């Protein structure tokens, strides 16, 4: 791992010329007696790749799901584009259209081909014509390197291919922010790279990304900002160089050492 130079992107946080696109203010989320998020505050600037890391069950995925209202927040608030997240279903839909989400288990629609998976969003939600949605879907499949798989059904694709289709599906809505929920955790080791490469390419194009991941090499090389979770709290956040080379917190060090990460 020592051969990797930190990307220039993570030397400094994106300038604060623009207000952050997503802000978490003391977010609290409970499931019954269990407190999944216990006052999480953080922010995401436009064009940044923010990586959420930490042990399983530490609240990273829950925070991601609170970002596009797949979960409701019990305390604190989440701001998107300077406005608190809405509470009504129809307003929620408008916000969700502006965010793409990629799931750990892909969640492709099994009764649709790859192309239909990618075109169904624009067609159903944005009212795009069948033709323009198809053209755009084909272009996006090209982008993720799956142009020849347009007519394949998900169950005939490998995990890595399915996840790339899922990324294309999310991109089809032309989102301002992409949310990745452990996008490589369900993949065979040999297909992880192809998904990370697509994500890296997106990052280089300037996409704002919030990524829950256990891929420390990705967080270090592609991330601009890393947030470390434990027991529903942020224990440390900072640029990758800080988190991976000279963490301020003992618990960060501990977590990374459990992953056999050698800065």
């Amino acid at each position: 791992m020592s051969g990797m130079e930190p990307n220039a992107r993570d030397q400094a946080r994106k300038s604060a010329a623009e207000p952050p696109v997503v802000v978490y203010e003391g977010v609290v989320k409970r499931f019954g007696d269990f407190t999944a998020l216990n006052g999480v505050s953080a922010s995401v600037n436009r064009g940044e790749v923010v990586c959420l890391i930490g042990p399983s069950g530490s609240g990273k995925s829950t925070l991601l799901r609170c970002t596009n209202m797949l979960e409701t927040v019990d305390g604190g608030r989440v701001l998107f584009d300077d406005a608190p997240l809405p509470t009504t279903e129809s307003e929620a839909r408008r916000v969700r259209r502006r965010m793409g989400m990629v799931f750990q288990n892909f969640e492709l629609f099994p009764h649709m081909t790859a192309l239909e998976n990618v075109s169904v969003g624009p067609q159903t939600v944005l009212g795009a014509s069948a033709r323009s949605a198809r053209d755009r879907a084909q272009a996006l499949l090209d982008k993720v390197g799956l142009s020849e798989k347009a007519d394949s059904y998900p169950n005939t694709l490998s995990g890595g291919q399915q996840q790339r289709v899922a990324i294309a599906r999310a991109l089809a809505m032309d989102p301002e922010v992409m949310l990745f929920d452990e996008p490589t955790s369900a993949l065979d080791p040999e297909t992880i790279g192809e998904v990370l490469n697509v994500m890296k390419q997106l990052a280089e194009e300037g996409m704002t990304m919030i990524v829950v991941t256990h891929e420390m090499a990705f967080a270090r090389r592609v991330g601009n900002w890393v947030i470390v979770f434990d027991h529903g709290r942020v224990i440390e956040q900072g640029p990758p160089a800080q988190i991976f080379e000279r963490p301020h917190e003992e618990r960060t060090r501990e977590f990374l050492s459990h992953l056999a990460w050698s800065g």
Partner: protein
Amino acid sequence: MNLDWSVAWQYRGMLADGVVVTILLTVLTMAISVPAGIGVMLLRQSRFPILRAIGLVYVEFFRNLPLILLVYWSFYVLPLLIDLQLSPFATGLVALCLNVTAYNSETFRAGVNSIRAGQTNAGLALGMSRWQVMRKVVLPQALRRILPVLASTWVSLFKDTSLVSVIAVGDLAHAALQVRSQTFRVLEMLTVMALIYWSLGYPQAKLVDWIHRKYGTSE
């Protein structure tokens, strides 16, 4: 014993008409009860407690009454209740639909609930409304999954249509029983009736087995 099988041939026209009515009743009942069953299922899944209650009462009421009682009830009570005089055929159709819709809605509910929440989340994350998620994502998958159950319901229904014969709908059972009482050829007509039901029902049952094999085990 003196058997005369020629009565069946002699009354073949009447029996054939009965077969047509039986098939028509089955097809129409299913054509109405599948969409109606989806409707009742949607009521039961609604966000609004009052709609959920209506769906629940419907299902629990009509699912737990003997079909023959529903047939009689539709025939004698419905006209008094809403002053609507339907033909025996339409009355029988109403009774069958009330019953089968209740069953279908439960079948659809099981199918919809078997689709994992992640699929709904994926649809919602794209900005779809709950209704769009249901229509585009959940229902098509659920339908595939419950096809074997719907096929079984179909075969049961095909036989259960015989119950409407009690209100003189000219279905196969009614036709055969009519011939029986006109000719007193009890054994012959019951046997012929059994043969016709069986020879029509058996291929359908085989078709259901095939559907089970093809769709029953897929993801």
